[in-house]
């Protein structure tokens, strides 16, 4: 994700100072592509910047955000904000007390089709929301030397890392969640898993959220189906893109972690970074707040609890 964010920053007028990574070779490769310095030490990097963008494995978010806040630097942090709600609260508090801005990259809110659907709902085009269906099913993160997504103690697992996007999006559409119930199936031989969760919103709407690391390598499907008292919005990633290509089969490498294809036009990761950057510069509100990120994490944790207890969980 560091690579994706670096490319996004490149499209702003911000100066890319440098990067730090536990894997120095990775940092050097990124630095040479984007003409930045490398820092062996995070504290040294903090000394040189006004904004830090944290794309490390999730358990490092808290110490790194706290350190940045202490150094008086604005923070942009990948999702999930943390693995535990208590940690997220501590991070929010530390940034508030230090007077620095804190943005969590809930990138689905920057995908044009998700933004447009939200706008249509907010404008009353489909009336009051009734049944929502949200899909985000990918493949098992592919083995590589440093692929930490496998390890649930690092990534939080599929629910907290992947389904959190649709919990956040559902909440953006329909408001606070009252009750969740979920089911999971796991592979007996590998990390493949598939989860379906039913959410009941305080507004009365209900949602089926589907998530998984379950498809063959390279296949990532997303979709939304929003029904309201006065209409319906449908979209799914199986729909044809503006350009379809047909080539003879070759042995294409599969990306180590699936990212949804965003189509032509502005890349949502770029839109996200540009938004955060401009809001920090202008001192304006973020469109998605750290409190939103915290609530999405709380819904994910409730789903995890339902998965382990087999019972509905009230928020």
């Amino acid at each position, binding site marked *: 994700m560091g690579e994706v964010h670096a490319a996004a920053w490149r499209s702003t007028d911000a100066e890319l100072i440098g990067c730090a990574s536990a894997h120095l070779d990775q940092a050097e490769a990124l630095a040479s592509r984007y003409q930045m310095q490398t820092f062996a030490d995070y504290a040294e990097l903090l000394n040189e910047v006004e904004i830090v963008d944290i794309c490390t494995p999730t358990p490092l978010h808290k110490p790194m955000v706290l350190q940045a806040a202490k150094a008086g630097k604005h923070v942009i942090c990948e999702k999930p904000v943390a693995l535990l709600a208590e940690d997220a609260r501590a991070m929010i508090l530390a940034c508030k007390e230090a007077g620095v801005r804190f943005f969590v990259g809930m990138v689905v809110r920057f995908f044009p089709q998700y933004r447009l659907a939200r706008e249509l709902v907010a404008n009353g085009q489909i009336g009051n929301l*009734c*049944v929502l269906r949200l899909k985000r099913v990918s493949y098992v993160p592919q083995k590589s030397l440093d692929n930490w997504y496998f390890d649930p103690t690092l990534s939080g697992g599929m629910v907290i890392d992947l389904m959190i996007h649709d919990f956040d999006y559902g909440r953006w559409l329909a408001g606070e969640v009252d009750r969740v*119930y979920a089911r999971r*199936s796991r592979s007996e031989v590998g990390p*493949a898993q598939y989860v379906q969760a039913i959410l009941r919103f305080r507004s009365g709407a209900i949602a089926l959220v589907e998530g998984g690391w*379950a498809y*063959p390598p390279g296949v990532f499907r997303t979709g939304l189906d929003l029904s309201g008292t006065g*209409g319906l919005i449908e979209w799914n990633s199986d729909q044809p893109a503006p350009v379809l290509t047909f080539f003879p089969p070759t042995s294409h490498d599969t990306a180590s972690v699936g990212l949804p294809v965003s189509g032509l036009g502005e890349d949502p990761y770029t839109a996200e970074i540009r938004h955060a950057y401009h809001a920090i510069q202008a001192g304006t509100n973020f469109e998605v707040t750290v409190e939103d990120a915290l609530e999405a994490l709380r819904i994910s944790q409730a789903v995890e609890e339902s998965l382990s207890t087999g019972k509905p969980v009230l928020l």
Partner: protein
Amino acid sequence: MPTRIGILSFAHLHAEGYQANLRAIPGVELIGFSHENGDEGRSFAEKYGLRWFSQHRDLLAAGLDGALICGENARHRELAEMAAEAKVPILCEKPIETNLADAKAMESICAKNGVWFMTAFPMRFAPSTQAVRAMIRKGELGNVLGVNGINHSEIPKGHRAWFADNNLAGGGAVMDHTVHLADLLRWCFAAEVVEVYAEIDIYPDEVKVDTAGLMLIMLSNGVQASIDCSWSRPTSYPRWGHLKMEVIGEQGTAVMDSFAQYLTLYSNNGLRNPSWIGFGPDPNQAMIEEFVASIQENREPRVTWNDGYQALRVALAAYESAKKKEPVRLDHPS
């Protein structure tokens, strides 16, 4: 000797399609239909050129080899009893009844009179479901991690008002749609539904029955599945709705949209604009043919009373779960 078939009640809109299905089968004689409402009966008789009987018993007295029951859900038992007592094999519209006691009574009267009872689950006769079932049965998808099932439609009260009348339908979307996917899951996996969790609601004010249902289901083989039975398509949707099922396996995933073969019609005079007009095979035709074949061969039909009964249990468990706000277990004594 032609096989003599009659349709008991035209209350269910499927009767209108079934009469055409029956007429397309060589060796079948469609004797007529019975319908108690005189205005409707005369109108259907004229529209389809069928003989109308104002009393169900009169149609049965005309001598039938088989009867289609297309009454309102809550009247299935009454019609089934009349047919069974007349020793006439039955093809009954789904859900087979609105409660378990009436459903069981239908089984016993059929057994007592030695007539076969077939439940109308047409989706078993669609090439799409048969292909997906074959993949599952042959293990081509590997260990199945889950199934995502969707049976959406518009609110059907525009077709028949009783669909949204709790006394006649026994419920709304959950009663209407759950049984199709519940049956496909039982049939594809040769397993029973052992647990149901559901969130159910009534959304627009204009109807008094449930219009939305999401459920998570556990099968006896450990496979989890979701069913979305909601009447969540607007009347402006290009078609009544759809039936979809995604089966996610460790070796592969099958994405099924049973009515995916359609043309998009843009017509200035169309009620729906655009509208999706299907060109795939009609599963109702194959289902009716199986019913006729079971009569001609004097054998049990390939979809039984128990299939209808088990699917009804799932729909009723969904209502119970939504009321209790907890998962409901279904037992299956061996």
